């Protein structure tokens, strides 16, 4: 055999490069809205990009959903949000993709990035508002206030917060004096990886508001689930996200997880699942989430 002295493959590479230059150029521009041309037009109309499901929900709740031009993959509620241009996962957006949507305001949840991309948005003159992290009631209210001021919807913001407070007080009253069931939050993400929520997590805050007590509260953040830890936590109820429940193979799958069967929750098959975004985003539907969880924990009282 003679050695290959064939430059065909390089020719193929070059053709690919040429093809990319031309075809990607055409297809890239075909389906997109052209960015607004004039500066006045830009000023006149608010065009918002939201990064993070919770923030998106708040913007909708404040009545500015129609000004959202693009959002990230985690923004699945309300339904209209999912129909906006998707920028992918909010921690890895590309600056140019956002710029191409010609927004004049980018609302970025804690953890949005990469930082270089957000910085580049600033350089183009797009206002970027980075929100603090939201893992409890106070932070959830603070986020609503920040966004309400930003969108000059202070009135609606106050009403939103008042509504949440009112509903939470109702739940609290109904539950006063009731024993608090011990709730173990299992965060499952498939592939056999299961984490247990500890102190300082959004799950802890939500469970507390809904009249439960976090089981296994001795550690901060999330820890891998072990059979002994599950049994030692003595949960009366096991809480999961609906996605997590699915990934573990439904209720039976959870009951089959190490140690679960030996807990009170396992014995009584008290497994609760709630929509991922509703459960963990601490958005405007916080009161709804709390009420729903409280109903599951105290079916005899909350209705």
């Amino acid at each position, binding site marked *: *055999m003679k*050695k*290959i*002295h*064939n*430059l065909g*493959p*390089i*020719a*193929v*590479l*070059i053709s690919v*490069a*040429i093809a*990319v*230059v031309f075809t*990607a*150029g055409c297809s*890239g*521009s075909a389906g*997109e809205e*052209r*960015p607004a041309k004039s500066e006045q037009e830009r000023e006149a109309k608010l065009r918002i990009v939201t990064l993070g499901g919770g923030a998106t929900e708040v913007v909708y709740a404040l009545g500015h959903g129609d000004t959202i031009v*693009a959002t990230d*993959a985690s923004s699945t509620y309300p339904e209209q949000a999912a129909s906006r*241009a*998707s*920028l*992918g*996962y909010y*921690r*890895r*957006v*590309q*600056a*140019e*993709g*956002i*710029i*191409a*949507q010609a927004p004049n305001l980018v609302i970025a949840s804690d*953890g949005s*990035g*990469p*930082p*270089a*991309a957000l*910085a*580049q948005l600033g*350089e*183009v*003159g797009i206002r970027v508002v980075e929100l603090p992290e939201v893992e409890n009631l106070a932070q959830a209210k603070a986020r609503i206030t920040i966004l309400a001021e930003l969108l000059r919807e202070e009135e609606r913001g106050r009403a939103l917060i008042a509504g949440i407070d009112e509903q939470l007080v109702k739940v609290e009253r109904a539950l006063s004096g009731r024993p608090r069931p011990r709730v173990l939050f299992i*965060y499952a*993400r498939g592939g056999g*990886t299961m*984490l247990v929520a500890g102190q300082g997590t959004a799950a802890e805050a939500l469970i507390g508001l809904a009249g439960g007590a976090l089981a296994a509260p001795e550690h901060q*953040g*999330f*820890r*891998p689930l072990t059979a002994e830890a599950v049994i030692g936590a003595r949960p009366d109820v096991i809480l999961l996200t609906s996605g997590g429940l699915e990934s573990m193979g439904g209720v039976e799958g959870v009951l089959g997880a190490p140690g679960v069967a030996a807990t009170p929750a396992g014995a009584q098959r008290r497994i609760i699942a709630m929509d991922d975004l509703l459960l963990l985003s601490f958005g405007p539907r916080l009161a709804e989430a709390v009420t729903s969880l409280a109903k599951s924990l105290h079916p005899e009282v909350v209705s």
Partner: protein
Amino acid sequence: MSSRRPRWGRGGLLLGALALFVGLSALAGLGLGAFEVGPGAVVEVLRAHLLPGGSTPSPIVDAVVWEIRVPRTILGLAVGAALATSGALFQGLFRNPLADPSLLGITLGAAAAVAIAVLGIGMLDVSHAPLGLTPEVLTATRPYMIPLAAFVGSLVTLLGVVALASGPGRLDVTTLLLAGIAVNAIAGAVTGFAIFLADDAQLRDLTFWTLGGLGGASWTVVIAVVPLLLAGLAFVPTLARRLDCLLLGETEAGHLGVRVEATKRSVVGVGALLVGVSVSAAGAIGFVGLVVPHLVRLLAGPGHRILLPASALLGAGGIVLADVLARTVVAPAELPIGVLTTLLGGPFFLWLLAGRRRGR
């Protein structure tokens, strides 16, 4: 025919073709993206910044081209050249076409360091101001923690592996490989443990980092990273002929006047610099270091005088092209570039292999 030197002519032709490929890829990198910019506008922006007396079409076009695409393309070219070259260097040193930076534990060592950093940053209680650092300082330095961890990780693993493989006065390549394999296993376990501990957000950080990407490109990064890579690449041609001799074996290379120990240390050092710096800037972009030199070898033979520059060119153009696709295919979102380099490089590689098997 026998008096001609077809390999050299072929090599020159290959280098020329690859230079054209790099040029086209760079044009694509500058001209294409989610934001529509006409070719004329791109030229105007470049002229405004590079030549005196130009003016830019509009601030937004100027920012998209000059602040986003230009640094991204430059970083892509440099990182692609560096990864492919380091692959060629290690394959030459180990006389093993399957060797690549990950074989020495460099890539996974960096990954493990990143995993530790990601978790560490997560556990860091900013309000307690550990080590006397103020929350402001911690917040400001957070973006640089991961690249720094990657660089330190690759350097530490490399130094560890080299120290293990260093006998009195010589570097044992077999031990180096074995130590690399062991370090890989350890680093893999550390990463696995970190992934097990990670919460969802951290897990995604780790996964995205493992797939790599040029999304972090900015002039700051370019200025920090590219000179280091260029310095490393500039040193590489001096190694070419010595690596050719090393293909005969270390003893034989020594008989030919190659200072074998110095050469091995240079190759390992330069390779690690190229990989460590690249990985710190763009994550662990897979497949390039392994496949690009292999492709070139199939086309132009094993001689390093062609292999090294051709790998650099093919790597540079390939990464930029893959990045253009990553940015445009699902625009305005972005694909991880590692997925594309593997999806593009894999079948292409198989096609070449199949061609060779048929004795084309």
